[in-house]
């Protein structure tokens, strides 16, 4: 933060009145947080930190960003907390309506397609939310769907989203995708290794990203159901 006070030549910048400045109400705010999802052969993991911040302050240390949608699907939402809450409410409502009309729960792929149209319905005034859905598909295999704020989406094997995403994604590319490694056996990921990797990756993120920390909430989705685990992270 101190770097901005000094100009290019090393001297302190001079501040002077440069004329009237228009301030407008911004409907958005950035509340931080990182989410991550990994898909395995018969499981999926969705993890998020639990810090809720705004500017220089921390509003809460216990505000997880993963939300359970159905028995086989969990969504992680980071960005603007207000939009995250409203979006999850709308998704829950649509899931209920689908269940009542069709007498079955929505599959992960269907939820992803529905979320894409919900987000695009706000193309001109977007939900400021970065979503990642993790769950099991119809065949019982792990599935991860990642979105941008206006609804473009695709199925992945692993994805990091939120404030530390640019730090975590290359690490996942290396450890899960075996990118940039020569002569390494491509072993499939089992559940224990995946959970340990997620913990390690978040510990690294908390070291270097100010908006990530406090605690880590991990949701493990298997055909038996959804298991939750909480792990402490750096609180500074």
């Amino acid at each position, binding site marked *: 933060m101190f770097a901005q006070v000094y100009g290019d030549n090393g001297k302190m910048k001079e501040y002077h009145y440069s004329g009237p400045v228009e301030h407008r109400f911004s409907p958005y705010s950035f509340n931080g947080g990182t989410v991550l999802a990994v898909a395995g052969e018969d499981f999926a993991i969705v993890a998020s930190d639990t810090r809720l911040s705004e500017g220089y302050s921390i509003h809460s240390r216990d505000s997880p960003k993963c939300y359970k949608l159905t028995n086989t699907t969990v969504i992680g939402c980071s960005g603007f907390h207000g939009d995250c809450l409203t979006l999850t409410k709308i998704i829950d409502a649509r899931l209920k309506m689908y269940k009542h009309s069709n007498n079955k729960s929505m599959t992960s792929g269907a939820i992803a397609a529905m979320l894409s149209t919900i987000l695009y319905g706000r193309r001109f*005034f977007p939900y400021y939310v970065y979503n990642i859905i993790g769950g099991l598909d119809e065949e019982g295999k792990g599935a991860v769907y990642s979105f941008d704020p206006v609804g473009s989406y695709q199925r992945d094997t692993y994805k990091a989203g939120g404030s530390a995403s640019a730090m975590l994604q290359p690490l996942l590319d290396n450890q899960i995708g075996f990118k940039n490694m020569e002569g390494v056996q491509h072993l499939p990921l089992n559940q224990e290794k995946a959970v340990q990797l997620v913990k390690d990756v978040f510990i690294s993120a908390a070291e270097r990203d100010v908006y990530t920390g406090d605690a880590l909430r991990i949701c493990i989705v298997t055909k038996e159901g959804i298991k939750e685990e909480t792990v402490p992270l750096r609180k500074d």
Partner: protein
Amino acid sequence: MALFDVSGYKSHAGLRGQILGTGVGHLVDRPNQEFAVPVGVDPSGFLKSCSREGGVSIDLNHGTTTLAFKFRHGVIVAVDSRASAGSYIASKEANKVIEINPYLLGTMSGSAADCQYWERLLAKECRLYKLRNKQRISVSAASKLLCNMMLGYRGMGLSMGSMIVGWDNKGPGLYYVDDNATRLSGRMFSTGCGSSYAYGVMDSGYREDMTVEEAYELGRRGITHATHRDAYSGGVVNLYHMQEDGWIKVCKEDVSELIHRYRKGMF
């Protein structure tokens, strides 16, 4: 229920009314979808003005190179697979070709969400056309449907450059449609930020009587050289060939390997 109006759900009664009674004469029953718009602000400039205030930075997935050309044995379509959000590469394996039906393909460049949404809607309209008219929609009509959708939202900041490729009664078809509702029929198009590089490669190697293998190689080279020079294109080359009996997916090759192969031939 509190959020019923904004949830985007259409009740059964409303849908029945549209299908049976009131919807006569509607070719496109798109009036279903309403888009929320920020009050009192120009939509296309709104997002830009919100960014950078208090750490808010809404980056949408963008950027591409796609190309398509007609030749004696059909149409070749080649696309890259990078989706960037600002300067971050959001995806290395984005799918930029939508398989509308076995005889129609659509490519996507520009804003990923706009392309995915409107081309998926186009796929729905093509399917409805087939059910209503008992014959497949022509490439000309499909591209016109997409063009009219874009015209409805002209000036609101949509970003889409797409090529509709197909084979119908009139033979192979290639149309370019963009967010300004431009619609052009042609023999060769390239879209996206890497398009200038792809045009250069295609123009220098194109002959109407190429063999199929030569055409595949031209498509691959066009994308590879474009990704080599354009920062916002990269990933893998997805190559499709539109033939008389439908399209086939030819290959999916990593650009870094291809550029090494071409470099060896260059020196």
